[in-house]
């Protein structure tokens, strides 16, 4: 059967390999894209206003953002089917933040965030299948099904935290460990606009600045702390300045390249021994705070719709790539299809994989039984659970 012309192009694209000579003269292997303006706090200069992006990078960022978007939509649907219960906070709309930052970080730079963590879990290397299985409480989940939505972890990804603000001093502590061990790494410590008013955040700022810790504090400001608009919770909504003596950067986080360059700037800052820096990622979440919140009682549907239409990070990046002729439209469609397939398979696995063994109810409380009590058993459990094994 003869191949269609788009299939021929697709096959040629797949044959391409590294990045140089290519069949179609219409596509570039890299382009210079401009970043959106930044705002500076106690900084003489900021990140670059332009950045070189290769077509490989473009494809990767697009794919990662599309995967997070589709994964979160799938999680929302699983929740509505009651396959996921409890608390589930979706990241849709904020994809450019985790993907853009991860573009500069490597897997050796630790990251810690709060509960809106599924996007970060994915970019930190946890496959979609393991994220969705964790949400449905299966043994194949990334925390063996024991953590759920808010407690996902991986190497150099410290979660996933339920009590907002509590992760910020933890992040400062991790940064201290890097500095102590002389690792050339930064710790990215994320929190939201609601948590920005917690006292322990400022305690962490003080320690980080006092001891010059390589910590990038990131406030993911999506304009609402649950249902409270930022103006009603904060005396100052200029979150990038609230580190006071810590230099800060305001970033339009609906554009992945803008986020990437800000992160590059921040990482260089920390690694050159200048101490911590604070990034405010101004972003937006399409869904409500959690699956129990429709997200329309404190903001208008028009506002949400207008963000989706005018400022969506994936749609605008797609447009940028096509305009810059970095990636062909057919390729983007293929990426979309491949992402859909990956997420659909993950959903099936999340629905059908085995539940954890009942002994997971009482394992991992301590590392091992106390040395003085070799027959130690977790107290409070009776024969109903013991006899399940």
């Amino acid at each position: 059967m003869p191949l269609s012309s788009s299939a021929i192009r697709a096959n040629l694209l797949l044959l391409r390999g590294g990045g140089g000579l290519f069949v179609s003269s219409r596509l570039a292997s890299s382009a210079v894209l401009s970043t959106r303006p930044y705002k500076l706090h106690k900084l003489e200069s900021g990140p670059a206003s332009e950045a070189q992006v290769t077509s490989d990078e473009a494809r990767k960022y697009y794919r990662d953002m599309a995967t997070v978007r589709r994964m979160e939509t799938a999680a929302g649907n699983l929740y509505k089917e009651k396959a996921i219960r409890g608390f589930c906070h979706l990241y849709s709309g904020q994809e450019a933040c985790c993907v853009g930052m991860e573009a500069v970080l490597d897997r050796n730079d630790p990251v810690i965030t709060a509960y809106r963590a599924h996007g970060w879990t994915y970019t930190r290397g946890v496959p979609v299948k393991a994220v969705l299985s964790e949400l449905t409480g299966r043994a194949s989940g990334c925390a063996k099904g024991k953590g759920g939505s808010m407690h996902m972890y991986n190497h150099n990804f410290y979660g996933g935290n339920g009590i907002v603000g509590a992760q910020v001093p933890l992040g400062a502590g991790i940064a201290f460990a890097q500095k102590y061990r002389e690792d050339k790494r930064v710790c990215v410590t994320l929190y939201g606009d609601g948590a920005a008013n917690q006292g322990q955040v400022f305690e962490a700022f003080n320690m980080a600045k006092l001891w010059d810790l390589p910590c990038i504090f990131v406030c993911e400001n999506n304009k609402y702390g649950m249902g409270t608009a930022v103006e009603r919770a904060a005396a100052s909504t200029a979150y990038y300045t609230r580190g006071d003596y810590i230099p800060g950067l305001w970033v339009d986080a609906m554009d992945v390249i803008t986020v990437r360059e800000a992160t590059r700037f921040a990482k260089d800052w920390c690694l050159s021994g200048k101490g911590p820096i604070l990034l405010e990622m101004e972003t937006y979440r399409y869904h409500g705070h959690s699956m129990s919140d429709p997200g329309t009682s404190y903001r208008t549907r028009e506002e949400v719709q207008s963000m989706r239409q005018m400022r969506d990070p994936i749609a605008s990046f797609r447009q940028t790539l096509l305009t810059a002729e970095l990636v062909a439209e057919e390729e983007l469609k293929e990426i979309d299809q491949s992402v859909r397939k990956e997420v659909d398979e993950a959903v099936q696995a999340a629905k059908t994989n085995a539940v954890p063994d009942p002994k997971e109810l009482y394992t991992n409380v301590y590392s091992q039984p106390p040395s003085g009590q070799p027959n130690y058993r977790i107290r409070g459990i009776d024969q109903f659970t013991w006899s399940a094994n």
Partner: protein
Amino acid sequence: CRSLAARLGPVCLDAASFSRRRLSFGPQFVYTPESADKSLGETSRMNLFQAVTSALDNTLANDPSAVVFGEDVAFGGVFRCTVGLKDKYGKDRVFNTPLSEQGIVGFAIGHAVAGATTVAEIQFGDYIFPAFDQIANEASKYRYRSGNHFNCGSLTVRAPIGAVGHGALYHSQSPEGFFAHLPGIKVVIPRGPIQAKGLLLACINDPDPCFYFEPKILYRSAVEDVPVNGYVLPIGKAEVLIEGSDVTLIGYGTQVHVLREVARLAQSELGVSCELIDMRTILPFDEETVYASVCKTGRCLIAHEAPLTGGFGAELAASVQEHCFLNLEAPVRRVAGHDTPFPHIFENFYLPHQRRCLAAIKDLIGY
């Protein structure tokens, strides 16, 4: 063990059958509505969160110094306990705070010390821990350390607690054990709407700082005809809900309703007559009622969702054995949550459900 479990009833014991069956989650009970004293006058059908709103409404109406604040209370609160209050009494008296538990409670203590009636809400009991220093080191000690010069008695802090079926680690905790250890405060947990309104009003009017924990699973599932006017129920007084002769069952909050079912099953399956006590106040707890009951029955079972070690049941057990020793026919038993974090999965195994309690009663009778 398996045959005992098989005889005692339908609890899923293997992972395979667990995944085959759709278990319902959370505490298993049927709420038994109660009725209020006729002398309290006109009633209205209310669930537990509406009873809380009614108590706050009465307070704001009668006490011009009273204010209510916390995260998201202005629109009505995440559990709808404060619906309509801002519109009725104004945003100066019913207002939102930022996300800062330590700040909320510290600020509330100060407001109370200055003499105002202060009702602060912590959104989930699981979030109360940043405020624990304020509670332990400021609120509980104020009167004592100032030689009665100052106090924050007009403070009441409300928080939802307890298992709800899907809350997992950070939306299901029962922290009353930590607070029972603080002389100077009072800790109160209601079992239903009529109790909730009377006990909350009692806390608000109480001259000492009160911590009022609302079992969140009861907010919607417990419905009764509650008096519309204000009334108080006694703090520091437990209530005997069912009289019996063989075993004393002690619980509070949601667990009272689980124990009601346990008492019924004990009678029908084992021929055992149980006396059921709702503690209502954790601190200072009603020693007289508890000791009188256990001295009568000779056997005691205490049940709570909070983990076993150091839970409030431990205090009750120690006190009961001290005061009722010669009357005891068997050691005091506790059925409680496991000594693990509240789990994301297998909540049904973790909670002190009917079958676990019934197994303990069998042990008590057969001792």
